[in-house]
């Protein structure tokens, strides 16, 4: 049952081979057994999950079930869900029970999916190892001494360990793709604006995008069908016709042009990761694809640009966490300024504070032009690189992360080393393009390697097709860690 695809689970539910309550309980039991070692979930609420499961069973009985009705899906704790503790991995929101649903959550609720629990994450999605969570580090189920990646590390760990059928993530600089790669699962960051950001706690508004994480491209397509859609409450949400992201899954790949950016295969890339990615490319050639060498010359600037823009937006987005209306307020303070200072000093962790400081600095009078404006200009150049590249290819491929999962604590005291683990993913967010990661083998330490597939704007259906055809030909995505 835990190895079934979403489609198989849906079929079993609709055929009454299993009820949603039974399926949900199976997952809750498995979580109870294995989550303590992984720390993938921050909040579980079996009563609410099972209540949803009962409602789903009624809907299944009535014959009005959708593709995801009755299926337990874990939600990254960045999404506000009515009645659920929603912490965003921070002490600042340790007591925040959301009074409303994020758009993504209501899309799942409308589909009849079960909210199985809220998954652990780097605090306010700031991190690449899930070590910045106030609720403790998440472990990689392939090796519990290693990180799952971040910031959607809890989701990646839970999906890999089969502690949910599928789950959501968010990706600001690689937070879906990098943990997917490090945990050997599939994850998709859609084109900016495809999924509404309403109710998704903001890190860097111009980069944040929600997306599905699961065990296969086929599952991702079903999840994205539910998550995507225009939402008038998000002004950056895109008004487009509803599409079926599974429509092209079975198209053959003959003639597919794969762009390989030379910058993605240069210094800094682990040789074991390179080998696995090259093997995947070879597989694609067998499937009928051709390879085109391309260049993305400005991607080398993506990390410095990102670490100006994302903290700038974050420093402002996180101002609302002031201890006044909700969330953490320091117990002792002398006056208003002290209340702010104490509450924010105690409520935020070190990485969040570091980024607020950077962001405040780059927006300051006298520095704004040199940092923020300059970074915006380079951001446009980075996006332009991709426009050029897509004149010569249909998708771009490369590694998701330069290395496989590293050890807990290994990069803890060197933020720049940590930032470099997102070197291949960040440019995609800066350009607003869709990107995904699928498992394509294992590295020298037997940890999973991810293949990154970057598509043109709104090309999610083609990317899922490209990933699905590879998954039909290989079985990396079916490998499961021993718990």
């Amino acid at each position, binding site marked *: 049952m835990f190895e079934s695809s979403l489609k198989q689970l849906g079929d079993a539910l609709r055929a009454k081979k299993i009820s949603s309550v039974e399926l949900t309980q199976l997952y809750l039991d498995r979580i109870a057994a294995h989550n303590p070692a992984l720390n993938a979930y921050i909040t579980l609420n079996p009563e609410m999950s099972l209540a949803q499961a009962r409602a789903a069973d009624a809907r299944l009985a009535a014959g009005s079930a959708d593709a995801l009705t009755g299926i337990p899906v874990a939600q990254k704790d960045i*999404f*506000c869900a009515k009645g659920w503790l*929603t912490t*965003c991995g921070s002490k600042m*929101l340790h007591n*925040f029970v*959301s*009074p*409303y649903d*994020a758009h993504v959550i209501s899309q799942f609720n409308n589909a009849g999916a079960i909210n199985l629990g809220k998954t652990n994450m780097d605090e306010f999605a700031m991190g690449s190892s899930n070590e910045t969570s106030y609720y403790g580090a998440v472990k990689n189920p392939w090796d519990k001494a290693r990180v799952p990646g971040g910031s959607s590390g809890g989701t990646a760990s839970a999906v890999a360990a089969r502690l949910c059928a599928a789950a959501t993530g968010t990706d600001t600089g690689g937070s879906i793709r990098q943990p997917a790669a490090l945990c050997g699962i599939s994850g998709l960051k859609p084109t900016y604006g495809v999924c509404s*950001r*309403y*109710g*998704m*706690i*903001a890190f*860097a*508004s*111009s980069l944040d995008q929600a997306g599905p994480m699961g065990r296969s491209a086929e599952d991702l397509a079903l999840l994205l069908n539910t998550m995507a859609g225009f939402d*008038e*409450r*998000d*002004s*950056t949400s895109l008004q487009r016709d509803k599409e079926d992201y599974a429509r092209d899954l079975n198209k053959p790949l003959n003639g597919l042009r794969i762009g390989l950016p030379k910058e993605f295969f240069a210094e800094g890339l682990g040789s074991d990761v390179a080998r696995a990615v090259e093997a995947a490319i070879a597989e694609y050639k067998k499937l009928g694809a051709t390879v085109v060498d391309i260049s993305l010359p400005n991607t080398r600037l993506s990390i410095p640009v990102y670490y100006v823009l994302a903290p*700038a*937006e974050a*420093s*402002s987005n*996180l*101002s*609302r*966490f*002031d201890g*006044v*209306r*909700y969330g953490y307020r320091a117990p002792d303070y002398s006056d*208003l300024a002290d209340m*702010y200072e104490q509450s924010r000093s105690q409520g935020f962790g070190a990485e969040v504070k570091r980024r607020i400081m950077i962001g*405040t600095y780059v*927006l*300051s*009078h006298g520095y*704004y032009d040199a940092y*923020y404006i300059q970074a915006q200009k380079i951001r446009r150049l980075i996006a332009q690189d991709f426009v050029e590249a897509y004149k010569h290819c249909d998708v771009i491929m490369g590694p998701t992360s330069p290395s496989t999962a590293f050890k807990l604590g290994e990069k803890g005291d060197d933020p720049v080393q940590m930032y470099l683990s997102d070197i291949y993913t960040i440019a995609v967010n800066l350009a607003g393009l869709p990107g995904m990661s699928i498992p394509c083998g294992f590295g020298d330490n037997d940890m999973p390697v991810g293949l990154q597939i970057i598509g043109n704007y709104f090309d999610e259906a083609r990317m899922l097709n490209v990933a699905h055809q590879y998954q039909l030909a290989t079985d990396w995505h079916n490998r499961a860690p021993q718990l």
Partner: protein
Amino acid sequence: MQWEIVIGLEVHAQLSTNSKIFCGASTAFGAEPNTQADAVSLALPGVLPVLNKGAVERAIKFGLATGAHIAPRSVFARKNYFYPDLPKGYQISQFDLPVVGQGALTIQVEPLSGNAKPYEKVVRITRAHLEEDAGKSLHADFHGMTGIDLNRAGTPLLEIVSEPDMRSAAEAVAYAKALHTLVRWIGICDGNMQEGSFRCDVNVSVRKPGGELGTRREIKNLNSFKFMQQAIDYEVQWQIDTIENGGKVQQATILFDPDSGETRMMRSKEDAHDYRYFPDPDLLPLDISAQWIDEVRATLPELPHDKQSRYVNDLGLSAYDASVLTSSREMADFFDSTRMHLDTENDIDNPKLCANWIIGEVAAQLNRDELDITQCPIKAYRLSELLAYVAKGRISNSGAKEVFRTMWTEGGDADSIIVKKALEQISDIGAIEKIVDEIIAANADKVAEYRSGKDKLFGFFVGLAMKASKGKANPAQLNDILKQKLAG
């Protein structure tokens, strides 16, 4: 030493939309605290702003009414600072790309003292931009704590920034009043200053005439024209005294205390925030098409200044009368309506008569009863009936005033009051001739004196005739008949 006063204004006009600028919560004034604070007003985690088009439409109206450039693309920016009544920790405003560019407003200045004559002046408007209001901090009734009311948080404001074109408190007040009239006239703001719908910040500096601009101090949040004038007068004198005593004016934000009549420091330039403005990534740039501008233009009424010119040039009113009648759209409507009724129903084209009565009797009574023109107990068509009788000579001017007072307090129409009170003038030529004949017969000696050249006696005969008619003889007719008959 001679000093020149330099004043510029920043006015916050609350736009009259039903819902807030970035969410659907109500903007109604006076509700229980926090009952109009939805998830967006509270800045809950994850919420996002969505721009209210009604607010943009009002900004466009303002731009068109001041002859300003409407930006085809403007940008919302975040102004970052911490304050308990600012729930997001930033205010969404517009910074380097405002929706309304440079415009101008023509004002009528009534000098406050001396014998100087009223004059007209054009004040340049630098820009006007959209932004959201903050909530309120309540310091009473919380046992040493501060209460926060977020009902007002997110209310749409248009911040209207003038050039430092004003040279006296009188000009500043005239500008503020003209702006106040305009925003209500075009229906974008209710102008209620008590409720904070129209708030003025005044930048004041002094300099040697023609010299470089002096250092300014900004008087914050003036909510009456009277206080504005007092605050400027005090501040100007304070700055002049400071400089003449060898001191320097430091840039600062100050408050006016109406009780003491003094200004006091709120914060100095050193305490000024670095607001760290940057474009709000949650909102797309605001694109305004030429078509949208045309649609809004089609809804604009005739503007006060245009109407004023028309009253002077086409209706022959004095500049003063025209400016009083255009002090509000309702006042102008009342005048227009009275004038139209008089013209169409009585065939009397007499704007001056209407103007005199509205500026005189009507305004005085409204003032006495503390009413505004929309609450006037006499409807325009009723007034026009009365004025028709005045114009036709059915009643005397003093009789008309009596009828007016009765209409005001008791209601009713002029005709029945005239009949009931027997105020009708005697306009019957036969009746007046009879009276005149009797007077001539009874005063033969005086008639002889008059005829021999003592013209001054004419008034004596008028007096007798009026007395005989109990004051009801139509004065013009009486004059004519008397002259005729006395001439012999």
